[in-house]
């Protein structure tokens, strides 16, 4: 009899399942406490913060604008580009930053539209990436111009010479798409910010109060105001998704409409969109890990559950990217055109083929080998590392699409190779610094956590007891 009793399982069978209260939505704190937690994170500026901002600012000034100024005064020749590789690192950077800017909108708008509740605390952090990713991307079409000081000739303005830009050119489509995206994503960032600005206005003094008073647009928080705000956010969330798709498709068309072998591909549009989302969502996990690790009170708002959810997204998009890659590459191989094979041969057996193999490891093998594991997905710094590797892989992909393809054209006499110069590397580093600088400054000016949305979510979520289990439920908000 006693032996039978000791056979009783010591552990509760559900002990390994996570406690539902680990989820932000089921772990509410008083509203005022949450407000002050967020405000504290904005006003917490230790010495390390100022050092970081100072170094980043210096890099923006010297590595980005200094090197750019040097290039303007000397000529494009200080970059490593040459015949036939007329585009190089600058255009690869451009595509890369546009890709980064995708994730913000993707994560925020698509998850909002599908009412994915886990999105609430990090939509703003993601949307900020869109704005600043576009700021970094938007510089490159200017940087890469041979005569930057004539960039305004691409703008359709009336002039006495009766000259007009050429709307047949994909570069014009680019300009229109990017300006549309920048404008709409900035409005989309600003709309959910209004109640938080009012919250900050009511709880701050000095210059901050003046700033937030302007930005809050007189928000009082009445029911009518919230109703209008929800409607506006909803319209923008739906409308910005096709804009986001169009932007990266048009960036892909910069290449795909050209008759260059290796670029002229019908799949480039969706292939680029998927690649952008893969690199962008990975970058969101990186930024979230940084915010969580460096800013005060963020461990309450950004939790392993969010990394877990984003990790699943990254895995899905890594698979989708692999599918598109397979389509693009294998059909070119099967087609058997001599030029296409020369381009492929340069990827597979050229002197820089390690970049190609490295890309496959970074974009396919590493995410597929790690992200199925919940423990890894729930570890912020593991996700940071994986996100970093995927972004390296995606950068390699853009680099090869621009420069490898141009190295092998239809005229074998003109085949060439390309070596980025110090100026190009400096400007590339400078644009990373620009993104981080703007982000770091903004993190102390606006709440990175949409507090009212988190609070709204916590109001809607409850734990109901059904039998012996506690089941999370969510009520319809709108």
């Amino acid at each position, binding site marked *: 009899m006693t032996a039978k009793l000791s056979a009783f399982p010591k552990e509760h069978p559900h002990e390994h399942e996570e406690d539902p209260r680990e989820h932000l939505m089921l772990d509410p704190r008083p509203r005022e406490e949450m407000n002050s937690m967020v405000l504290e994170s904005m006003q917490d500026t230790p010495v390390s913060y100022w050092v970081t901002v100072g170094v980043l600012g210096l890099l923006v000034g010297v590595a980005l604008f200094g090197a750019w100024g040097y290039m303007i005064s*000397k*000529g*494009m*020749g200080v970059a490593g*580009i*040459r*015949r*036939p590789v*007329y*585009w190089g690192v600058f255009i690869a950077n451009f595509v890369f930053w546009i890709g980064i800017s995708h994730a913000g909108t993707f994560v925020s708008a698509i998850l909002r539209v599908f009412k994915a509740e886990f999105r609430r605390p990090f939509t703003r952090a993601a949307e900020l990436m869109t704005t600043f990713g576009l700021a970094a991307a938007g510089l490159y079409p200017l940087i*890469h*111009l*041979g*005569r*930057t000081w*004539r*960039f305004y*000739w*691409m703008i359709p303005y009336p002039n006495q010479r009766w*000259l*007009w*830009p*050429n709307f*047949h*050119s*994909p*570069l*014009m489509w680019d*300009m229109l798409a990017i300006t549309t995206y920048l404008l709409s994503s900035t409005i989309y960032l600003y709309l959910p910010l209004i109640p938080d600005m009012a919250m900050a206005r009511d709880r701050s003094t000095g210059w901050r109060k003046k700033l937030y008073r302007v930005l809050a647009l007189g928000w009082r928080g009445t029911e009518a105001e919230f109703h209008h705000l929800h409607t506006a956010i909803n319209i923008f969330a739906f409308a910005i998704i096709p804009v986001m798709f169009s932007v990266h498709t048009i960036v892909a068309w*910069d290449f795909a*409409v*050209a*008759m*260059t072998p290796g670029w002229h591909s019908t799949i480039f549009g969706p292939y680029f969109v998927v690649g952008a989302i893969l690199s962008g969502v990975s970058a969101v996990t990186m930024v979230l890990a940084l915010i969580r690790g460096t800013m005060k009170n963020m461990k309450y708002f950004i939790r392993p559950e969010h990394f877990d959810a984003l990790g699943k997204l990254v895995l899905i998009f890594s698979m989708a990217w692999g599918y598109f890659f397979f389509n693009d590459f294998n059909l070119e191989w099967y087609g058997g055109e001599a030029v296409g094979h020369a381009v492929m041969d340069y990827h597979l057996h050229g002197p820089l083929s390690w970049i190609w193999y490295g890309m496959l490891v970074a974009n396919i093998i590493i995410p597929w080998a790690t992200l199925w594991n919940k423990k890894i997905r729930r570890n912020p710094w593991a996700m940071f590392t994986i996100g970093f590797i995927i972004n390296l892989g995606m950068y390699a992909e853009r680099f090869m699409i621009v420069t490898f393809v*141009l190295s092998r*054209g*239809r*005229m*074998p*006499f*003109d085949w*060439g190779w390309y070596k980025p110069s110090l100026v190009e590397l400096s400007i590339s580093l400078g644009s990373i610094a620009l993104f981080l600088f703007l982000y770091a400054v903004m993190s102390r000016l606006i709440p990175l956590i949409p507090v009212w949305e988190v609070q709204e979510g916590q109001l809607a979520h409850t734990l109901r007891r059904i039998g012996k289990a506690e089941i999370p439920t969510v009520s319809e908000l709108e």
Partner: protein
Amino acid sequence: MSETAQEKWGMVIDLDRCNGCQACVTACSLENNVGFVGEESAAYGRGMHWIRIQRYWEGEYPNITARFRPVMCQQCGHAPCEPVCPVFATYHSEAEQINVQVYNRCIGTRYCANNCPYVARTFNWFDWEWPEPLNEQLNPDVTVRRRGIMEKCTFCIQRIRKGEEDAEAEGREVADGEIQPACAQACPADAIVFGNLADPESRVSRLARSARAEKLLEELGTETKVIYLKGGSSRDR
């Protein structure tokens, strides 16, 4: 845009006559104020030559032959470079039926050069210098291009214009062979012939009808205005 491009100025290059002497390259550079980039830059693929002698080896040593092909802008009737320019710096001249480049309009996106299957375009990576007394050699009829601008062969449009204006002043048609670009003028083997393709009796038209005639990458449908003769037979002369 018509199905087949209209014909006007054209060029025939007899590859069986070309011996790769590069006289055309030199003459073109001097006529058109093409910048000198120096040895190092030229080796890195930044030579500005509007016409380049492509050299291909045939066979294995010791049974090896060098083949030469002078390649310049092919003056496509349906040019891939034209639609991609955001500011119309490269466009099709209806009057001359060639592809022209407006230097002062170019902002240097270099998209046209990426989309040129013949790699015919060159870019001014820097401001080039003509130190004294080399500046005396600059051709006053041709713009000196500054940094950040794309350029390419124009079929010596300054010579075409001058020939047309001379003929108009004298109230006559331009005679066959009257207008010669610098490369054709300098070719010691008479491998380059220039003239009006619209005139079926012109020398260039007669040569273009040769059985040896071919166009470079004709399968792309670019309707080029440069015809290469290749085959080794001399029956057309």
